[in-house]
């Protein structure tokens, strides 16, 4: 995918072209997937690169900065976070089904080695629960998507959503509280 193409698609998305969103998603998907895969396959834990790095790297790689505008950037990160969510959840699901003989059961993140060393959150379960959160409060679910899956900071999230960082912080804490409550066994 040539850089310029993605930049152009992104501009169409910013221009309000709804069909371009799908196009952008698939364009970004391939790149993010490659980056994330490379990351997930690294065996040694001392070469840390974060989701932040993956998403930013994809952005720098795909988008011609000189021709894209700031609002394009926001669209890009919003979509990138969505895509990262899909990649990571798919990855977790695949691992889960390999390990559990076809059933996507509880998957401890630590099984991914140092890469997935968080506090043992089941990504597949989190994904399902996030769908239910979206029914309660759409914006909170998006914040989780951007912040957790996209690796964006809360300030960046605030910027993308166009709300104050203070609000995002409060929303994030509430979303997290609810998710943890729902996810507790």
């Amino acid at each position, binding site marked *: 995918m040539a850089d310029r193409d993605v930049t152009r698609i992104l501009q169409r998305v910013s221009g309000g072209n709804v069909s371009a969103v799908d196009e952008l998603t698939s364009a970004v998907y391939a790149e993010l997937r*490659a*980056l*994330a895969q*490379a*990351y997930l*396959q690294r065996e040694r*834990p*001392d*070469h*840390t*690169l*974060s*989701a*932040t*790095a*993956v998403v*930013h*790297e994809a952005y*720098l*790689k795909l988008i011609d*900065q000189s021709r894209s*505008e700031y609002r394009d950037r926001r669209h890009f990160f919003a979509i990138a976070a969505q895509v*990262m969510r899909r990649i990571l959840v798919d990855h*977790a699901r695949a691992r889960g089904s390999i390990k559990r003989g076809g059933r996507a059961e509880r998957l401890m*993140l630590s099984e991914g080695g140092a*890469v*997935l*060393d*968080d*506090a043992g959150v089941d*990504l597949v*379960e989190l994904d399902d629960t996030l769908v*239910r959160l979206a*029914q*309660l*409060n759409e914006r909170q679910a998006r914040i*989780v998507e951007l*912040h*957790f*899956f996209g*690796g964006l*900071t*809360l*300030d*960046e999230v605030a*910027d993308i959503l166009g709300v104050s*960082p203070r609000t995002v*912080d*409060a929303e994030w*804490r509430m979303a*997290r*509280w*609810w*998710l*943890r*409550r*729902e*996810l*507790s*066994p």
Partner: protein
Amino acid sequence: MAHGPLVAAEGVVAVSPEEYAQLREVYMAARELPDAQRADFVARACARDGALRANLDSLLRDDASAATFLDTPPLGRGLAAASITQNEVSPTRRARDSQRSTPDTNRYIGPFRILGVLGEGGMGIVYEAEQQRPRRRVALKVMRPQCWSAQAQRRFEHEAQVLRLLQHPGIVQVYEAGFAEVRGSALARRASTPAVVDSAPLRAPYFAMELVRGRTLTEHAAAVGLDIPERLRLMARVCDAVQHAHERGVVHRDLKPANILLSDETKNGATAENQVVPGPDRLAEGGAPGDVDRQPGKAGPPSGSPHRARLQPCADSSTRGFVDQPKILDFGVARITDSDVQITTMHTNVGQLIGTLAYMSPEQVAGDSRAIDLRSDVYSLGVILYELLTGRLPYDVRRASLSRAAQLIRHEPPRRPSSIDPMLRGDLETIVLLALEKDRARRYTSAGELARDLRRYLNHKPIAARPPTLLDRLRKLVARHRTVALLAGLLLICLIAATVARTLFGLDAQRRRDEADEARTRETPRAAKAEAAAPP
């Protein structure tokens, strides 16, 4: 898990969208209030709704706690670039102001425009950034924010000045250092001193450094399959650079393979000209370990091929472009921030800590910052040399607990390199073990000495280091096992006493026997003479 609608954890009742919206509204209002008024407000707002009250209490409790649930994304998170404001010690204020109106303003740290994330570790995150004046790409390391007293800040600035003056081809050049003031919860929550987040301003020290793309020393050695002389030559160059810094009074204090880079000139060259950014090949790279068919002693010319063949698993792809000048990263950074001393008190990932610990000298592990001098660096060089030669660490700390690891480093002798590879027996082992002496007074006195011995070995000349004598080893053994040694000593004294006694008595007996014999022989000749003298 079952997505049953009803009772979740903590006995709190699950909520409908309406109830959720209501809870959110009360929560948002409550968290804006000062503590004193909050309880009152909550009581009034939930007067007729027990479930709301229970949920709100739980939520506010959670809010007040330092909960970290979901704080780290599946692939980890960098420190938040965007939550660093522009109020910092910055010598290039003008450059910054001219940029303030651009949309990317919040992606600045100091005078540096953030372009991407290069990596992150327990101490902070490293960005790829662009400096405005002079215009160049830099690696910008932003450390964890913490509170800095005025005195500590002055010291930081003084040390930073020393680092700027440290210029050597084997040292990654520090261009600038300063503070970024931190606001925003994401970063502040990651601060090393969470208790003071709300009261004092947090400052994140940053260092703008020469941007080196490449890989670490051990990665490089493994990927290219360097032989031992080549590894030693690289190591001697590392020692030269360390020596240069030592001569200028700068101790590294955190030498480890991850801090020693081999630059890939094809990449560095390209980046300076075009807007090339790290691609997936940087993530996937590693090359093919094992045998490599190449000119001995040559790590590849610095230029030649403009494109590094991506994912091409041949020797060429791993050697080409890598210059054989290792560059040391983060010189003096640990001293400025005292990070090695604080390290055990910080909220770092234990695995990471162990990784750093493995290269620390016994005196560093003991946490005695006054005992840390250039000889600590010599020790760390010894560990790196050990690892380069054997592929292992001198102590098996990876699986040990922290306290056990510290104990190993401080008291146990390292596994002899020759026990891993018999080829290493002799001078090379002597060199490694001398650098790894627990007592810094017995180590090489400088990195330069170590380099000289490595080169003597390479040139087949006699090395300066002497293997420890039997007496030295005995002394160490005694120091390590005092009680056993004491008992053994007592036993030895008893034995000696017994032997002496037996010998004395034995001698006495022997003497008497001898005298008796002598007397007899005196008798015998006389008798014989008498016999001979007797007339027939």
